[in-house]
């Protein structure tokens, strides 16, 4: 049965698009048939992060308005053939994202894929609403930082009231993905700890992605981190998150700071 998953956060810049690409790739690498859908009309970036920016011919709005068939707009990944991308329009405005149009596209995608992963734009406006509307599962991407946690709380409230599932009185599966986590700073009491964020938001934890240069390198290269550097801690976190999404249950390990003895002795005192 196809699952429609929304990657959302409220706040911008927390890692939604990067996480969409990495989770989509990780699921596809596990043999699932995956499509990642960019809902950020006017500010699309999933194509760029996936390295498909030069292959975009038609986009979702073209399909909604009947100018192209869905199959023409879908871009198949060159590295993993079970991974596809449906790009957003860069030139139209968000009003072109109609409820009927989105419903039709999601219904068609459900027939073709195992996973439909919707990359939400930031904010709580129409684009974000459309991205979460059809979701069965939500991944709430949060940074351990006050404004991100507050916005995630707001988004969780919307997932529980504004989605089709919520309107049918069904439960939407919500997972927390903690990104840009710096274990050393959390240990020093400078950054909210995983437990703090979990206690405040009270949804189950899907993974902790450490702040790392590997993630930045991945978007520089236009390749999901699970492909560009599959042995990095960030990629491992995404692989584990994908396994959890597929229903596997196993312990989650909080990344710890690795420090030399000298660093341990003097690291805290040096400003």
């Amino acid at each position, binding site marked *: 049965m196809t699952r429609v998953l929304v990657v959302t956060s409220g706040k911008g810049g927390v890692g939604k698009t990067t996480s969409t690409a990495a989770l989509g790739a990780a699921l596809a690498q596990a043999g699932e048939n995956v499509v990642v859908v960019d809902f950020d009309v006017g500010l699309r970036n999933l194509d760029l992060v996936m390295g498909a920016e030069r292959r975009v011919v038609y986009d979702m709005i073209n399909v909604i308005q009947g100018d192209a068939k869905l199959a023409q707009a879908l871009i198949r990944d060159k590295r993993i053939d079970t991974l596809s991308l449906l790009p957003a329009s860069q030139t139209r405005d968000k009003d072109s994202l109609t409820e009927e149009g989105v419903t039709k596209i999601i219904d068609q995608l459900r027939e073709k894929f195992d996973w439909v992963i919707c990359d939400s734009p930031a904010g709580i406006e129409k684009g974000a609403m459309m991205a979460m509307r059809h979701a069965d599962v939500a991944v709430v991407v949060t940074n351990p*930082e*006050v404004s991100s*946690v*507050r916005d995630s*709380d*707001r988004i969780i*409230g919307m997932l529980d009231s504004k989605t089709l599932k919520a309107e049918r009185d069904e439960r939407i599966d919500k997972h927390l993905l903690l990104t840009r986590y710096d274990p050393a700073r*959390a240990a*020093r*009491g*400078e*950054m*909210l*700890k995983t437990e*703090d964020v979990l206690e*405040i938001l009270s949804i189950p934890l899907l993974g902790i992605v450490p702040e790392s240069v590997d993630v930045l390198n991945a978007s520089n290269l236009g390749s999901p981190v699970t492909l560009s550097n599959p042995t990095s801690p960030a990629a491992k976190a995404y692989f584990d998150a994908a396994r959890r999404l597929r229903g596997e249950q196993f312990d989650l390990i909080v990344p710890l700071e690795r420090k030399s003895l000298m660093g341990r002795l003097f690291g*805290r*005192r040096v*400003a």
Partner: protein
Amino acid sequence: MNLMALFRRERSAPVARERLQILLAHERMAGSHSDLLNLLREEIVDVIARHIKVDREKVKIKLDRGDEVSTLEIDVEMPAAIPLVKTQGAAA
């Protein structure tokens, strides 16, 4: 201030955690009653208007949220000579 405080770095995460917990408790409440203030305002003005002629614009309702106690403040501005609404009930 003791000497250790000079060496110990300020820990801001516990402050963040506490501020968030208080803020979100309020925001979640407001989220489920987002129209509460407007509803209260309309109904309170209706009750007052049954007896006194009031200018709806001059009724101010404020909800102040504290850690322990919240206060609902209703401020109705009236002219010096209170203009009563003449009804059969009010004649008593």
